[in-house]
């Protein structure tokens, strides 16, 4: 695992104590000590200039499913977007964005891309839509001029670069052969377009580097910067203006870059990409793919419609807080502002006036619903089909919000230790989890996870509020790294105060932006960016600007060399929690 994430308790493990030991006590708990850079500069304070940075390697990234769809919509129109499954994206170190630089295309994956490509091409060029995407009118069944004009323009947008004449000729020849065989100009284009859509240069974004003539070392080319920016900030292919700026070489120049970055950050389209960042970091892809399933007998209130609305609710709160209000990231964990729909009203047991669509919602001051931790989306996702899971919820908070990796359980745990007290009647999760605490092999790690999750036990496996479990009152009190709380709102407040919350978000946003974990040469910069984030009042737009104008984003050590990548682990409690880490 690249050295970005500190294994909680790794030090104790090295001392031959059980992994996790009994750490996690007072004082901010275990946390990342930045790895010193080989040529470490002086410890940077909140200085205006960033410390020197040696950026990590470049690798091509496979379009994620949402990026694929957005790109098709931008280039070929909304109506060309076809339904259907893609090969699953893979989550590595907690992010699909990092996995996108590892994955390839399997045979069945390419088959799906191919079927999708044919359907997209058919829709884009059907009689109702062809005039919107083909700017010329064919003079006959075979019209090379018109075909090549279409293919040149479309390939430029799909491949995110100008295409050479010989490439255009090759695609045109395919269209010509097909048009004459099928006796239909547009059918010819369809064959060429569907092939273009399975080209590796479309399915993968190729980040190319060049020697930086002024500073030496490798930097991303201006063209590569165009799609690095657009897929990060708009989650789609560059628009004409950005692509043209990339082609003119303006994006390697700080002033040219700044002006495009300003434009992208001010656009409404930033919403899409912020949603994507959070959907990725919080595992919402499982909801989008319909993989969050609950037992209908135990949870009759659950439906796919409700869980999709729950995801949307959370993303609306994120966008409202971070973009519309330009607010403090930490307030995501303490805000009472939310949004509701009728299906959500069932989960939240609140009356929703509008029969359709969304309405703003403000939870009362004495309500337990405070902050995103109490949202049905995150609660249902980190639960089992038949019950809640304090362990999964606690693990998620540690990993996603504090950037702490909880190690997998040891393989040789003697579970027979649990036997003696297991016949006792156990009514609440807290009682059931006592076994973890009483077994030293489990206690260390579970002490990091379970108390956090137990604070959320007033919400069941689909996020419906409850006061009791099996008739017994729920005790939601606990402490987060020494910061005591009485209930879920208290946990949200403790998390918002946690010194690691802001820095972790910077690290996550950075990893999302570059599609890899930070390298040693970026540690000083990262720490500097974390301070800048705090200085800015934990606001997202300035953070994104800091990232995309940094050397860590603009430069590279060179192409990534082959090595084995890690994927996430499965914990005994991960059995059916697809949201936690997919399924490897």
């Amino acid at each position, binding site marked *: 695992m690249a050295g970005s994430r500190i294994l909680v308790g790794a030090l104790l493990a090295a001392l031959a104590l059980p992994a996790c030991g009994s750490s996690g006590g007072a004082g901010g708990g275990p946390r990342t000590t930045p790895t010193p850079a080989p040529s470490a500069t002086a410890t940077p304070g909140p200085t205006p200039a960033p410390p020197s940075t040696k950026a990590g390697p470049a690798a091509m990234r496979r379009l994620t499913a949402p990026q694929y769809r957005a790109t098709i919509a931008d280039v070929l129109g909304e109506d060309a977007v076809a339904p259907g499954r893609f090969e699953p994206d893979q989550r590595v170190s907690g992010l699909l964005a990092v996995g996108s630089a590892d994955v390839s*295309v*399997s045979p069945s994956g390419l088959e799906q891309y191919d079927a999708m490509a044919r359907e997209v091409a058919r829709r884009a060029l059907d009689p109702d839509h062809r005039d919107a995407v083909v700017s010329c009118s064919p003079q006959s069944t075979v019209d090379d001029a018109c075909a090549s004009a279409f293919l040149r323009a479309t390939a430029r947008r799909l491949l995110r670069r100008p295409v050479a004449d010989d490439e255009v000729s090759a695609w045109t020849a395919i269209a010509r052969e*097909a048009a004459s065989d099928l006796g239909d100009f547009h059918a010819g284009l369809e064959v060429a377009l569907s092939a273009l859509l399975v080209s590796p240069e479309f399915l993968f974004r190729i980040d190319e580097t060049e020697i930086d003539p002024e500073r030496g070392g490798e930097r991303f080319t201006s063209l590569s910067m165009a799609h690095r920016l657009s897929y990060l900030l708009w989650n789609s292919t560059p628009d004409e203006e950005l692509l043209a700026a990339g082609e003119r070489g303006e994006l390697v120049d700080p002033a040219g870059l700044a002006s495009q970055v300003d434009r992208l950050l001010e656009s409404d389209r930033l919403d899409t990409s912020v949603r994507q960042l959070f959907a990725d970091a919080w595992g919402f892809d499982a909801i989008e793919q319909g993989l969050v*399933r609950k037992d209908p007998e135990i949870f009759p209130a659950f439906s796919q419609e409700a869980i999709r609305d729950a995801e949307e609710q959370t993303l609306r709160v994120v966008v409202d807080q971070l973009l519309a209000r330009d607010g403090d990231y930490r307030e995501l964990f303490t805000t009472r502002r939310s949004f509701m729909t009728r299906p959500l009203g069932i989960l939240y047991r609140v009356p929703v006036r509008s029969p359709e669509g969304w309405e703003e919602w403000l939870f009362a001051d004495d309500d337990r619903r405070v902050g995103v931790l109490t949202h049905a989306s995150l609660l249902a996702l980190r639960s089992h089909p038949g019950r809640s899971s304090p362990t999964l919820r606690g693990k998620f908070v540690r990993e996603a919000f504090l950037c702490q990796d909880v190690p997998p359980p040891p393989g040789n745990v003697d579970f027979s230790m649990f036997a003696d007290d*297991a016949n006792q009647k156990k009514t609440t999760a807290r009682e059931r989890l006592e076994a973890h605490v009483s077994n030293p092999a489990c206690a260390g790690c579970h002490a990091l996870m379970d108390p956090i999750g137990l604070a959320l036990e007033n919400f069941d496996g689909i996020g419906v509020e409850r006061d009791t479990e099996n008739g017994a009152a729920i005790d939601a009190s606990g402490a987060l790294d020494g910061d005591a709380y009485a209930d879920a709102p208290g946990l949200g407040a403790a998390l918002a105060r946690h010194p690691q919350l802001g820095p972790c978000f910077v690290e996550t946003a950075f990893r999302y932006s570059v599609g890899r974990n930070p390298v040693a040469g970026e540690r000083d910069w990262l720490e500097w960016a974390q301070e800048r984030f705090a200085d800015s009042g934990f606001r997202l737009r300035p953070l994104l600007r800091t990232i995309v104008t940094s050397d860590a984003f603009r430069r590279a050590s060179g192409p990534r060399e082959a090595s084995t990548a890690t994927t996430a682990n*499965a914990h005994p409690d991960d059995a059916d929690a697809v949201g936690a880490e997919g399924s490897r």
Partner: protein
Amino acid sequence: MRRSRLDRRTVLRGLLGGAAVSIGLPLLEIFLDDHGTALADGGALPVRFGTWFWGCGMNPDRWTPERVGAGYDLPVELAPLAGLSDRVSVLSGFGVTLDGRPNLPHWTGVMATLTGSVPRRDGDVDAPTLDTIVSKAIGSATRFRSIEMSATGIPGQSYSREGTSLVNSAAVSPLELYARIFGPGFADPGDASFQPDPRTLLRRSALSAVREDANRLAARLGSHDRRRLDQYLTSLRQLEQQIEVSLRPPDLAACRKPEAPAGEDVGSDLERATATHRLLADVAIAAMLCDQARVFNMVFSWGTSELRRQGTDTAHHQLTHDEVVDKELGYQPRATEYSQASVAEWAWFVRRLAETPEGAGSLLDHCLVLGHSESSFAKSHSVAGLPVMLAGTAGGRVRSGLHVRGDGEPVTRVGLTVQQALGVAAESFGTGSMRTDRPLADILA
């Protein structure tokens, strides 16, 4: 039927008369020899390989037969195999040597069996899995390199992997799997008016242009990306192969385009998983009869088995850890219910293959199916004495119906046996202490 009135000589004359005629003719039963097992030109019916996986193992004391060799006994947890024990070999006592690496719960056992290597970290896949190795030997001529299926509804739950970051994801919907195999790309041998779609030929040449682009791209990439592009190119070859194959109908006599699965309801509870498993299995069986694929992988439940009875809040895997070993019974009754249900479903699958006629016998006669789990006693994540079974005789290449004791030998001996039986030129399998060059002599015919 028209088929029965044709005589062999007439058809052969027709075949010789022109290449154009020979393309579309289905393989007729009259080409089979007297035993119905081989083609008239001496070619045998295709041999297939599959894996069938269930999570969270078994109880060794209740699972392991006492008698070795043929005519072995069926202890209570193998009872569902009653009537099939001459078609299934039980391989007990084969396990994993860790070489100082951690025993990664629910991962080490399955990866050691399928890749021969003990992974260092959870999720790592250090070598290609057995099915991908075998598919290179027997699966390259079919429309699909292999068919991956998961009965509990999560596409990522597939153990078919080329490496850590290349997962051959699983079909979870029987209807989608049916559409993929028997949809428009399927050349129906029952359709006398079959003509290849002219677009199919055009796609073929369009894809060769894609290949040229990909080759040009390779020159611009670093080693990490080149490796990924190579995998893409392998997939592209498979896609071209699919197009090639779809130009003519399948030529196996037993091939019939099946009806689409009637309804589906995907979920991880035992009722839904069982129903989904059976629908997926029937699509896969029809696909093999039509030679659309010769390799398949079925995951009945994941290593951390999420099987559950509807209305109960605790799943199989959780039970293996939480549930007490009943002192009188000597096992965990609720967890065991699920592992037994899994073995029962494995028996259903084997029986289904055995009852599917092909040639003079059954589809099972032309299959080798590895039934396995990732642990033996799941409560302690034990990878000693993994439950492993082999069903079918692979067209006479293996002996079946034996109980073979491993006595602690590495489970890679099974993987090597499978490879050699299926014509993979492998002299050894596995790494470190798991490496072996000794296949199971009793099994290889």
